[in-house]
């Protein structure tokens, strides 16, 4: 893990990059990183995020600034700006079931080519996907999903980069921290090594490439 400033971290992300951003309706999202993405005007982003949050909050800021060109998400109904941009064909949107979304990212992070899920069989979601039978039951083949960057928000980070998450702010963060080439983390608190007990670490240090330093 390398400690960096938020400016340095975001400077590594080129316009047009694919980014996974943790959070669920803006809860558990690395706000400081997104503010800086907006400030540095990274355009044409491929965003992989559970939802579009709401205007002004979480990934909603990226839609306010019209920085997103492609979106993979599960629900964008609470962000009218994202809806508008989708209906105006300014962004290409792939809406997928939430359990499928997280399993595809987990597969990407865990070296699996994909998973077989019953979710979506016989619905619009099945269009263009392979249907695979196992013991007489039908499943959709859902393939792995990865990104160039994962922007992750933790509760505690220690000096090595071990991470814990708080309450419902955990959500997609630990899974995304495994599924990108470069993992950039903000933490509410940075604490000395040993403060986090081994059994409480959720994301082990070697997964973290850059931690945004205090101050």
């Amino acid at each position, binding site marked *: 893990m390398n400690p960096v400033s938020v400016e340095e971290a975001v400077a590594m992300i080129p316009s047009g990059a694919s980014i996974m951003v943790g959070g*669920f*309706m*803006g*809860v*558990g999202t690395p706000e400081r990183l997104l503010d800086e993405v907006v400030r540095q005007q990274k355009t044409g982003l491929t965003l992989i995020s*559970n*939802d579009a*949050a*709401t205007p002004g909050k979480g990934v909603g800021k990226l839609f306010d600034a019209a920085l997103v060109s492609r979106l993979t*998400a*599960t*629900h*964008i*109904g*609470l962000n009218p700006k994202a*809806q508008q941009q*989708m*209906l105006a064909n300014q962004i290409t949107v792939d*809406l*997928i*079931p*939430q*359990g*499928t979304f*997280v*399993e595809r990212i*987990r597969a990407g992070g865990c070296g699996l080519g994909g998973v077989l*899920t*019953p*979710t*979506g*069989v*016989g*619905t*619009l*979601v099945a269009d263009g996907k392979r249907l695979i039978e196992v013991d007489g039951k039908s499943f959709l083949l859902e393939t792995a999903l990865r990104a160039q960057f994962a922007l992750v928000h933790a*509760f505690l980070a220690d000096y090595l980069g071990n991470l814990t*998450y*708080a*309450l*419902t*702010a*955990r*959500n*997609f*963060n*630990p*899974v995304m921290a495994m599924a990108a080439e470069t993992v950039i983390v903000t933490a509410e608190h940075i604490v000395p090594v040993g403060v986090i007990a081994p059994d409480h670490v*959720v994301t082990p240090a070697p997964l973290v490439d850059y931690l945004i330093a205090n101050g």
Partner: protein
Amino acid sequence: MDPQIIIARRVARELHSGDLVNLGIGIPTLVANYVPADLKVFFQSENGLIGTGPIPEQGMAHPLLTDAGGRPISALPGAATFDSAMSFGLIRGGHVDVTVLGGLQVDADGHLANWMIPGKMVPGMGGAMDLVSGARRVIVAMQHAAKGKSKIVAKCSLPLTSTRPVDLVVTDLAVIGFAGGKATLMETAPGVSVAEVMAVTEADLTIPGTVPEMKL
């Protein structure tokens, strides 16, 4: 009684001690208000929590503890938090005993449509498809009709949420089951006759010899 409260109270009677229950937004959320205090039900919020508690008192809300709509909630003693892979592992893996969801349409075969109106409302399905595919028991809690049109239809015209039929539909007028593979009128709301339900229901309903009144 308010139609929504009739629905919520009736659905609450379907829950049992020890059940892991996931409530969708809208009417389903109200169900938690009508669960008897001695019933030990675990409520899951799919953003990563089992043991959701009531809305926190003034000044006690924490920004990192919310429901799936992003609104502040509390956590009961014995709550557990986890990531989204675990949350949907619980849902898709059959560990959720009951899910209560809103609906746009349910048809005579028990198929539910509740996630999009093509060309009009395309918010995304969120967790709905996984919940209907994976929960042990799927209960739809919705008004019987919207703008004078039956929501219990012969065949869903809207895109399906799942091909797995739901188990029970609870409306302000009736309880409809699908145990035999076909829509069956199980109960009527207080003061509502079987004929009245049939009159406002597009789907053909199987009507048993006796149709009791809902206990609320």
